[in-house]
């Protein structure tokens, strides 16, 4: 009941954000997380950021975030 993954906020305008996870970018609302800022790692569930994610902690336990450099690699051209 709680499928949510960490993603980084790369765009933010009021409470409308774009988050990035391994180059996949999703529209997300930050209405529930007014303290969120660009660059923050957040937990995204059903299109909403529901919590900030402590990056150091996350690196220790999330397989995908363990390679944090790859996680943030969006240099390649985006499609879609």
């Amino acid at each position, binding site marked *: *009941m*709680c*499928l949510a*993954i960490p*993603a980084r906020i790369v765009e933010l305008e009021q409470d409308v954000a774009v988050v990035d*996870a*391994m*180059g*996949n*970018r*999703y*529209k997300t609302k930050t209405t529930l997380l007014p303290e969120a800022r660009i660059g923050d790692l957040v937990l*995204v*569930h*059903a299109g909403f950021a529901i919590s900030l994610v402590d990056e150091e902690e996350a690196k220790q336990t999330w*397989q*995908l975030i363990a*390679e944090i450099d*790859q*996680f943030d690699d*969006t240099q*390649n*051209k*985006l*499609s*879609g």
Partner: protein
Amino acid sequence: MTQIMRTSKHDRILLAHGGGGQLMDDLIRQHILPGLKNDALNELGDSAKLDLTSGSVCFTTDSYVVKPLFFNGGDIGKLAVCGTVNDLAVAGSKPVALTLSFIIEDGFEIELLDKILASIGETADRIGVNIVTGDTKTVEAGAADRIFINTAGIGIRLPGVELGFEKIVIGDKIIINGTIGDHGMTIISQREEIKFQSQLKSDCAPLADLTCELLANTSGIKFMRDPTRGGLAATLNEIARSTTLSVEIRENDIPIRPAVLAAADMLGFDVLTIANEGKFIVVVSPESADDCLSISRNHPLGKEAKIIGEIVETRDAPLVEIETRIGGKRIVQMPYGRELPRIC
């Protein structure tokens, strides 16, 4: 009162384009033939005449209904050629000829048809396979989802090659030529209700060159299959069912791009069930496994090839089991047939 339609530039398909008359003739001569670039077709006979060097052929058919029509890494045309060629390739044959049938909706943009045709022509040309005959039908708007493609393909069986479920025995290794989930996740990322921007790219590619090389240079290959719809999970379960043996694979050994995994995680999909269009698995004797691996890795379409598991003895019932990243074990079931995104 009939009117003689001149070759005025239509920008959309009309029902008349499928009517067998002047408009259809125009469509074939001005769009289809130039796109496909095949001399044999220019004869426009009702059937193709093929001189086959061998009496033993593989024969396959497939239909393509993918949406969206154009995606990162390919389009419905490229998919049609590669998909059919790959079915022939994994059956142990060298693809030589394809048929090509279109069912096109009234109103479909001709410019898009040209793009698809060019893609088909290019792909077939690159592989060295000929589109030898075809058909075009048009239907009312709404009766088809823009365009459907059907193909049939013929391949010449490679001499001395006998592949089949019955050849598979306990101890045989399972090799895959590269990363899984790329095609399916790319398509999903462009589905209307899920659309998201990504770097994902379909792995759509023709495999005959690599499969023929493997079959010519190793002797222990028992079976091959391309894990398209239903993904690796479906293919491995088919093997278990048909052989009544069991399969063990290791999660750590399955190549997968982190971006594909991240996308699947976000939507709740299991990557093992996601379609691939440029991948195939080989079931090979343990003695020949290393050879298979090195041949694959020297080929552009097999650089990330890996041994992912083996055929094992069945305990109670034929199963596919995976050893997870953390050393646990669980069963991989045959997928339902339709994966839906979850929030739970």
